[in-house]
């Protein structure tokens, strides 16, 4: 009973509710569209939505990394640029090693992928080093600087060029964006991979001592330090992992963009990663949030974008705008609700005391 009660009060429950309401609205709108002849056939059904989730789950890996950073009360706005730099190196290294062979070279691809992930981790390490070494600077400012640095580095490597890869070996990366057929359902491959990783992150953050320490740092890093926790070391490695996850995201992006690499391939994508984590209950104050919440948020963003784009035919810009509005409302909503509840309680009690006083006087 207690458990059910606390679940009903939890942020995750609110998110599920939000998701259900959105689905209901989209379903109705979809039916209306069909009935009025605006669209030929229904688009909002499970299999179709699931299949269309692919682009929205591209940055999910970045969200996993961002959760660590936000749980510690920091922020990393360079993750998009890290992803870009990682895949740019991937392209450059592959070009060098494969030497333009028609068939491509699997060995070269493996090596290039390894370098790509390594670059991601190293970029994260640079962030981690700067954040732990220069505590007087805000992580926001540090990662703003490294973001510009990583971007500049990407341009330094390939300039305004687009590296395109036609060989079948490299093209195999786009397999990462294919659909997995299970019976009637077509599932984007990124989703099961994400879920597997999310389980790992869930256990790490919510079940292990190390995860507890990450949240402790976000709650009060000074007190955590005085408790004998190696705050800087944990911070450093979380930034490394965030960088690594950006590189992973980058690899999915390459497959998505018809096997071509540009020096701005993932610019701005850190915002989606942050948005999903924040809607999931994480905050830059640190110390809170859950992997489950962030996962539900990724689904919510996917559904909203799908629904607004395909059912309400919003242009892309309007879809982004709406996502922003949802984010603000859902993050502010609970605060406003609590305020209102408190005010009501105080009013009630005051009326009560006034009545008591009046009775006493009479």
């Amino acid at each position, binding site marked *: 009973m207690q458990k059910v009660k606390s679940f009903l009060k939890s942020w995750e429950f609110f998110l599920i509710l939000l998701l259900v309401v959105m689905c209901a609205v989209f379903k109705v709108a979809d039916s209306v569209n069909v009935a009025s002849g605006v669209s030929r056939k229904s688009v909002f059904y499970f299999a179709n939505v699931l299949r269309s989730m692919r682009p929205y789950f591209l940055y999910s890996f970045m969200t996993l990394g961002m959760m660590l950073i936000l749980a510690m009360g920091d922020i990393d706005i360079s993750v998009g640029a890290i992803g870009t730099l990682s895949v740019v190196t991937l392209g450059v290294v592959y070009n060098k090693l494969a030497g333009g062979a028609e068939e491509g070279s699997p060995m070269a691809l493996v090596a290039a992928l390894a370098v790509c992930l390594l670059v991601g981790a190293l970029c994260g390490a640079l962030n981690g080093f700067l954040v732990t070494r220069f505590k007087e600077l805000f992580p926001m400012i540090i990662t703003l600087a490294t973001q510009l640095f990583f971007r500049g580095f990407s341009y330094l490597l390939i300039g305004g060029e687009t590296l395109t890869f036609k060989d079948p070996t490299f093209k195999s990366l786009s397999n990462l964006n294919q659909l997995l057929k299970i019976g009637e359902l077509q599932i984007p491959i990124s989703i099961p991979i994400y879920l597997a990783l999310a389980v790992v992150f869930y256990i790490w953050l919510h079940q292990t001592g190390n995860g507890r*320490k990450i949240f402790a740092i976000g709650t009060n890093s000074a007190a*955590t330090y005085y408790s004998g926790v190696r705050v800087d070391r944990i911070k450093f490695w979380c930034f490394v992992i965030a960088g690594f996850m950006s590189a992973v995201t980058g690899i999915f992006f390459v497959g998505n963009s018809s096997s071509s690499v540009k020096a701005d391939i993932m610019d701005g994508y850190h915002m989606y990663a942050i948005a999903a984590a924040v809607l999931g209950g994480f905050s830059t104050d640190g110390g809170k949030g859950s992997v489950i919440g962030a996962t539900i948020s990724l689904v919510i963003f996917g559904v909203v974008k799908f629904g607004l784009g395909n059912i309400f035919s919003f242009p892309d810009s309007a879809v982004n705008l709406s996502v922003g509005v949802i984010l603000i409302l859902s993050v502010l909503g609970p605060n406003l609700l609590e305020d209102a509840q408190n005010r009501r309680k105080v009013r009630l009690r005051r009326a009560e005391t006034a009545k008591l006083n009046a009775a006493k006087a009479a």
Partner: protein
Amino acid sequence: MPGSEYILEMNGITKIFPGVKALDNVHFNLKAGEIHVLVGENGAGKSTFIKTLTGVHQPDGGEIILNGEKVVMTDPITAQERGIAAIYQHAASYPDLSVAENIFIGHEFKIGPFIDWPKMNREAKKLLDSIDANLSPTASVGSLTVGQQQLVEIAKALSMDARILIMDEPTASLSQREAEDLYTIARRLRDKGVGIILISHRFEDIFGLADRVTVFRDAQYIGTWQLSEVDQPFLVHHMVGREITQLFPKKQTQVGKELLKLENLSRTGFYRDINMTVRAGEIVGLTGLVGAGRTEVMESVFGVTKPDSGKIYFKGEEVHDQTPTQMMARGLGMLPENRQKEGLLLSWSINHNISLSVLDKCQNGMFINRGKEYELSGKMKELLAIKAPTTDTHTGALSGGNQQKVVVAKQLAAEPQVIILDEPTKGVDVGSKAAIYEIMSDLASQGLGILMISSELPEVINMSDRIYVMSEGKVTREFTDTKGLTQDDILHAAMPQKQ
């Protein structure tokens, strides 16, 4: 009403927060030109009471009569306009602004839309001079000592022509000397006809300064007395609601081998040539004025900062490159001075706070074993008699004394051999103080070495086996025998030497 002799009367004040009655029909009155001290344990409702007077909280019942006129304090600005000013323990309002800016914030002297700097600095200087505060109006407040910051706050209150001045634990962060200065100023203001409401846990403040005393306990009004009619045991009895037979329960212990030794430890700008030892079963007091470098030395020992030179030996072994993690693993615990900032995660439960320093002990492999965790925290809660419904209670909801016990529990969970306590009873009520002293005594008798940094001389003298006194970054005196030691002996050693 025969209320004409009072400038302030508060009758039957009741304040209810969701779930708690913070004030239950309490009374208070204040004459012009008196210092009226309000005492009670943490959580007795003193702060809430002050906040109903300053308009931060609206009372749910009762009346406030100011100069014979019934008033409603709708907000802090109204209270200010009616001549009520408050200064708090952590005084600095705007550490990055100058002294003059802090004094006149909200009512700056202006020429058109522009601030009249020369006039503001001049007026600030006048106010500061009137309380003998030798401060530059243009200095930034953050660069001042806490004591000087208090003076700025007082000047600020004077600038608003306050007739009622509330001082909330003004001496808690002050050294003896700074406290004396503050007493002088408070007396002078009283003689000018200002009514002062003082909140304090320190009996030196209460008996040295106040004219009348009002006691609150558990949100209730207990009584008001002339201080000349009462003594310390009487007040303690009414604050705590029971007799405290022995405030300083010091046990005789067997002093064992040397556990911690500092040799010529120096850190430029903070302390130099520090030689100290702590032995098993011993309580060592480390005192001196605030800013003498006591905390700084111990922070270096605990590994928070690095000393420039000198050696630290722990259990006979020289320690290099110390960090809190490493020192805790070796068996050193530290209770930081600022328990809310450095000691506790206030939004976390007692259970989670206690286990944080020893998570390795509560894990199966990588995974947290909640059973072990609860067992450990439950044991600690019982051992230290932490007053809370369960160990799932948030530490932010506890009283100061109980919070301090949780910080102690956190350190004890790691089973240290030496424990450094930095101002362990600061802002703690008298009942909890006695409890903390008892814990210290017990620990020492179990063979722990305890180093207690403290500015409160009675506790230093009564609890310590040995005392080090620091002044201006150096150890100026060591007292190996505390029998018959007086506060003056210690103060003499703590004063900066005149060139």
